[in-house]
């Protein structure tokens, strides 16, 4: 281990943390090769593989198969109006409850229709927190609808967090529209 004697970095390391450093050193340093150059290294770059498309600014990784996703942003058309929420809240407002009472009647008139209650948030706050908040909003709507007689088997809950705003823009007007539960009956 020539590096022990002549490695100017190791003298510092040895002073600072002798034992730990040595343990790392013996595994971390290649053996002396003198001036001889070793054979070809084992460098293996990430192989881009055979992607079927080219991403802007780079190639695709591997051969990921397309899965039929079509992309979307606006909410699916729904006969049921969105329910909106206050900032940082999953509590149903009086206006929201009024809307949900009408929705409950609609479910009664349309037996067999199932709905996914898609919870959404405005852009403020962190990703995981907003996923949880959207889930809680979805659950609040689920609880209300089941309490007024809609069978829970016809409803499922889920959250998009802040990832799929209805309208773009930063400001209370946009944020208020984006804090919503959307009723997706397309599935």
């Amino acid at each position, binding site marked *: 281990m020539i590096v022990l004697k002549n490695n100017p970095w190791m003298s510092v390391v040895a002073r600072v943390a002798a034992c730990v450093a040595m343990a790392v050193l013996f595994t*971390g*340093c*290649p053996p002396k090769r003198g001036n001889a150059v070793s054979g070809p290294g084992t460098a293996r770059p990430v192989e881009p593989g055979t992607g079927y498309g080219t991403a802007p600014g780079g*190639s695709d990784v591997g051969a990921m198969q397309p899965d*039929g*996703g079509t*992309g979307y942003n606006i909410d699916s058309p729904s006969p049921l109006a969105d329910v909106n929420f206050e900032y940082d809240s999953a509590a149903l407002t009086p206006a929201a409850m009024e809307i949900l009472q009408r929705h409950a009647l609609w479910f009664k008139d349309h037996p067999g229709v199932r709905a996914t209650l898609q919870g959404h948030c405005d852009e403020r706050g962190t990703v995981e927190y907003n996923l949880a908040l959207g889930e809680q909003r979805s659950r609040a709507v689920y609880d209300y609808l089941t309490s007024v007689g809609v069978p829970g088997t016809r409803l499922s809950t889920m959250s998009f967090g802040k990832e*799929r705003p209805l309208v773009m823009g930063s400001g209370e007007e946009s944020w208020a529209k984006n804090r919503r539960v959307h009723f*997706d009956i397309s599935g």
Partner: protein
Amino acid sequence: MATRVAVPDCVPRTGDEPAREACKTISEVLRKDLLFEEMTIVSDNLYKMLPPLKPDAPNFEDWKSVGAQVLVITKADVTAGVLNLELRLHHVASGDSMLARRFSNKADNPRYLAHQAADEILALANIRGVARSKIAFVSDRDQVKGKVAKEIYIMDYDGANPRRVTVNRSINMLPAWSPDGKAIAYISYRTGMPELFTAWIYEGRNTMFAAGRSGKVYAHSFSPDSKRMAYAFSPAAGKGSGDMDIWVANSDGTQPQRLTETAASDTAPTWSPTGREIAFTRSLSIGAPQIYVMDSEGLNQRRVSTIGTYNDGPAWNPAKEFTEIAYTSRLEGHFEVAVVDLTNGQTRQITQGRGNCEAPTWSPNGRHLAFCCENRGRWQIAVTDRMGRDVEILPSGPGDNKYPDWGPAATQ
């Protein structure tokens, strides 16, 4: 005093254009890699007056005269589409060889060989280099007007070579590398519901997390041995739906086990480097998430964030010498990256004055953080050291680029 390293220009072994071009890239990337880990590099202004370097018989007196203690010599040639790089390190005072290696690779990515050389040099200085690591992130660059498409991308740790991992034009988010570098697990809405997928990036296939079939997975993290997955789970509907809890399963989603059972909303699990503990976000009430830690069996749940009313998205430093957790904190209406030291409860703020920042992730050696910041309406990936000095925006490409996850030190 820091060791002074001279990195003179790479010498093309043959005079042809490909060798010269490769050499130019190698010198540039190698120096940047060493600077990233705070090596002290002798300024080329000091030695450009010296006689030309004779790579096979350097005059060590010359290099002594400019204060260099270590001389890094690189020579390269391109032969039949293969780039060969010779790396030699000399102890200037004695002239002795410290290291001599030769690397070969396809000629189209000279940056990789420079990164490999950097990691070899850093190892001599007892630093586990991350020059060959990659960062996964989410980008909306593929979306067309009127549609949302968020795809998972990976790039080199310095922002070079961005590559797309998912191609489904749906919402794909929260990429998480397996520590063995073989896979990236991510949440996808391609079926209409949030599902956890694993992309085996070198095999070109996706697998679905089995435990996600009975509900929704919203955030997840591989254990340090890549064998298990911690995740936030909410049942599909019915009783318990809407209340997220932390679960652990095998990394394929078999044998799920529930770790938290409170009425609080628990999410964003992250493993300690030993795999014996898990940090996560718990919201006892809406609008007030805090960082908690528990044993990986779910016992000893305790709060570790001490400052602020809103803390989320913990990332445990993977280096065992640093017992600390990075997270996102709301401070005076802004979102900033902060780190709490678990040995003394002290918190340090990492970002400031860069707009909103979130989603911190550590480099595999624990010496750096990456996160995303929104500046003038655009999200970009940034890196800094673990104290928050020298924040650098990575050239990660067009669009909004968010939710970085820093992969292991050497991916294949």
